[in-house]
């Protein structure tokens, strides 16, 4: 139809036009594409952060950021409230993002707390590789994205279910305990009456001799029976069940090895407020479970 030269001219013109049109299309959609890429990347960062949180943070701050008594404060909504407080009372000027990032990267040199009645076994460790921790900068960024993703939900406070807490009252009668449910409580498969998972296993191992923060509870039924006979025992318990109950509700009544397990003279590393989260039934079930550990 056309001679070679004309075919070449037509072909080259079409190809050049196609190239130019393609570049024009890329140009026109570039803003949206970059924004979309940013959103996808943020989503991926939150996914990564969630995995890192599950691996490193949830043991002390709870799988939902609800905190673990004695180990770590709640992040959701605690960290957001605490930040607002710092801003208002201390003139803290840095951004929320940097506040969280710094707290993770550099940790805390001493034990800190949001509320006066809380006490934690250990201060927040340093997590950044810059300060001897295990996490790379990008992992910390991901973690911050994950924690900030709570912020939207944090505005609405979670209702606390109404229940009667046992507190530190040792005289309150307990219903018969169910060791099966106690074990489920221990494993955090069911929650306490307060809606908060029991945090025992965060500090106590069931492996003989393993000390996480508190002593191993392997064979605690036998140990408890020996303890109440010990000459230096100053508590009120007469039976192993009572000894375990006292240890949970009033951990300061008797500290086995103050050098290892006391946070301050006469104050156990174990928080004294655990009883506020559980009903009499929870406590009875947990004791029943622990009594099976001979």
């Amino acid at each position, binding site marked *: 139809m056309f001679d070679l*030269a004309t075919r*070449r001219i037509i*072909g*080259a013109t079409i*190809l*050049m036009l*196609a*190239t130019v049109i*393609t*570049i024009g*299309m*890329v*140009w026109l959609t*570039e803003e949206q*594409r*970059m*924004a979309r*890429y*940013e*959103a*996808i*990347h*943020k*989503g*991926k960062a*939150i*996914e*990564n952060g*969630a*995995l890192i949180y*599950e691996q490193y943070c949830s043991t002390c701050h709870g799988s*939902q950021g609800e905190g673990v008594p004695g180990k770590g404060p709640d992040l959701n909504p605690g960290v957001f409230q605490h930040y607002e407080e710092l801003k208002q009372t201390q003139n803290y000027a840095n951004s929320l993002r940097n506040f969280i990032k710094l707290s993770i990267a550099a940790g805390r040199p001493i034990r800190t707390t949001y509320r006066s009645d809380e006490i934690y076994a250990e201060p927040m460790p340093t997590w950044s590789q810059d300060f001897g921790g295990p996490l*790379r*900068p*990008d*992992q910390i960024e991901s973690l911050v994205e*994950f924690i900030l*993703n*709570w912020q*939207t*939900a944090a505005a609405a406070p979670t209702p606390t279910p109404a229940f009667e807490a046992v507190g530190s009252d040792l005289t309150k009668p307990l219903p018969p305990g169910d060791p099966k449910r106690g074990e489920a409580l221990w494993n955090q498969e069911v929650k306490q009456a307060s809606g908060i998972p029991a945090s025992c296993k965060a500090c106590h191992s069931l492996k003989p001799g393993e000390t996480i923060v508190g002593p191993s509870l392997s064979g605690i039924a036998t140990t408890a029976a020996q303890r109440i006979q010990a000459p230096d025992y100053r508590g009120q318990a007469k039976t192993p069940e009572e000894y375990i109950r006292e240890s949970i509700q009033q951990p300061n009544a008797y500290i086995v090895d103050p050098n290892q397990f006391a946070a301050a003279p006469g104050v156990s590393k174990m928080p004294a407020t655990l009883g506020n989260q559980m009903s009499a039934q929870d406590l009875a079930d947990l004791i029943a479970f622990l009594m099976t550990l001979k």
Partner: protein
Amino acid sequence: MALRWPEPIPTLQKEVQQHGWRRVIFMHLDELVTRVTAGIPLTEVRNILRGEPPPRPNPRVKPHTEGFILHIKPSFYHEAVTRLYPTFRLGLLSFYLFLIETITGIFLMIFYTPSPLVAYENMLRILNNVPFGQLMRDIHRLGAEAMVVAVMLHMLRTFFTASYKRPRQFTWATGVILLVFTLFLSFSGYLLPWDQLSYWAVTIGTSMAEATPPPALGRIVNLILRGAPDIGAAGLLRFYLLHVIFLPLLLFFVFFVHYYKVVRHGLSLPPEMEAVGDDTARKVPPEKRVPYIPDIAIQEALWGIGLIAFLVIGAAFFYDAPLEQHADPLNTPLHTTAPWYFLWLQGLLKDPFLLALERLGLPRPPSTIYNSKVIMGVILPGLILFFLLIMPYLDFNISRRYSHRRKALVAGLVGVAAWTLLTYMGTPAFAVTSSADVEVMQEFIPLNPDPLFGEGKVRTIPYEQLVPGTYDTRNLQLPADAPRLARVLEDLKRRIETDPHLPQGYAIVRISEVQANLKRFEIALYWLKLDEHHQPVLDEQGNPVFQETKQAIYLHRDGTHGE
């Protein structure tokens, strides 16, 4: 004595007075065009555009003698080498690709710092904050793959048309060196994004260096290449410098040696056109000559236009350069592979000879005598490379005719087949032995994208269809409004129940919403524990013991799933 001009300096005014302004404009334009084209006057440009034959003497050869760029190009080609066969323009395309890689590479360099602390972040910035950043990166990556393909095909066609034979042996040898440089250039760029893909592909690729015998030398070679026992900041900087300075400079230098030889000996004619043993490429009869200007130049421009169109359209619509998660030296992805052009090496490292011995039931030779990493990873590839370099000097068959080269052609085809087979052996589809439960997790919820399973089947489920709940594959209660989830769960059920290594296998899938727009997808896999006699292991109560593997991933609404 006062310095004097021999004649009065012509001024524009005087010229116009003498010749008229139209003539003067033409004269100056003509001079400009003649200078820019290094010798072709304006009238001749018009003749070229009109397709008229050149006058004698031919001013169109002037750029070849006067100009720098064209002085290396021949002023005419034999008509027989101007068609697609026998050159397929693969050498030209390789050179074009090198130029395009240089330009796009410099663009990317502007936004990139070779440090593990920021390299990955720089990649993200290129993709989400640099206009045309993604396009440039995709073209760079696509161009790199295309260049490897073009150079490989160039070598194959040179072999099959016997163009490597006397007097072009040295041209072939420089070509082999260029192939090696091209592979290393591509490979050194592979590491720079500093994601999981690049980190582990290069870790595998450089693991051969350590096997260089003797061990003391291997350690030194490894240290020189990686900058440390493992790839880290020093390794990244080394690969960066190799990629942006050292290898391009070497390649550029060897390219000119190669191309000078090509021009010096002429492009070899199709084998059937010459008498056996003749080389008539330089003796082109006048009626067979096709001048470079304008015919070949136009052809080459057309190939350039076609190539650019291919790369731009391909990169914009059909190809995205991969970017996985940040490199993590502590987390080796399952099914890691070297880049595709080094898969044959990975295939060699799986050692076909040992696999054959195993298949035949024969014992393995002791590793002190037969160390497969040393032999298959270093010595054999070294020998292959050496053989390729000197191959033309060993070929005493002077004929280039296909019918006279049956053995060589068969050997070439066998070589290509062996390469293909080894490449297949290098992929994770061949002889990768991880346990069945790990493979199931990898297929459905891989922690890193997998060469076989991509991002995993679970990520194909749209976010809305991830209905929170617990699903047991023994008794699947499928949600009605989530067809894609239902399909994946049924897939999972079939996959587990048909796996002979997962007797009585089942899975409990838990989907929970952990945050706004974030869900957790956990697969807990259970299967019967068997003892060495393939009998179920029983616990104290006489119940069969089940083994358990759990893995979870998180899925964000804005993540890349459902696509």
